[in-house]
């Protein structure tokens, strides 16, 4: 059970593979069998929530992505929401849908089952940024 950043993302930054503002960055939701493993490289549908109850596999694209340069540079975006939703999720995985290999970026552990019923499931990204680099 963990939140963290995938090693592939670190390498992709250094190799100029990822552009967090220009690329399509998705957030996918996973069940309780998903385990964050920093050495995983690519997005997979294994253990992802099925397409049902207001969720579509692949996840939702981050909107209004922005990188703000500072001593602590941050990557941020609008909060992500699934409406008319009925499902239970345990993790969110952020991945790059523009890179041909669908490379992983980060994993957020919800700390247990988080359920929505005929409502809106929202991930409120931290005011400090989704990812920071200091």
């Amino acid at each position, binding site marked *: 059970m963990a939140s963290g950043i995938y090693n592939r993302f670190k390498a992709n930054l250094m190799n100029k593979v990822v552009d967090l503002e220009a690329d399509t960055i998705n957030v996918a939701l996973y069940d309780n069998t998903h385990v964050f493993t920093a050495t995983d490289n690519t997005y997979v549908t294994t253990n992802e929530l099925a397409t049902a109850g207001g969720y579509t596999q692949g996840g939702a694209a981050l909107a209004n992505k922005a990188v703000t340069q500072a001593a602590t540079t941050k990557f941020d975006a609008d909060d992500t929401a699934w409406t008319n939703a009925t499902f239970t999720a345990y993790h969110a995985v952020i991945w790059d849908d523009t890179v041909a290999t669908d490379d992983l970026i980060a994993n957020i552990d919800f700390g247990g089952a988080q359920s929505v019923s005929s409502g809106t499931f*929202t991930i409120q990204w931290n005011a400090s940024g989704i990812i920071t680099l200091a």
Partner: protein
Amino acid sequence: MQYKAKIVNGLPVILAEALRTKNKNGGYDITIQAPSLQLINDFIERNKNGKRDLQQIQS
């Protein structure tokens, strides 16, 4: 908000927090408040005993 954190297998674990509210549809909405992920993890420091301390992450 402060996020709960602990050490698992020597690695920091930061957990998201969630708020759930009833909605007018008779169901409920949920909002996950995600932690900010640090690309360089600087919140583990070794203490004078050579062990690791865990500091709380504050958003």
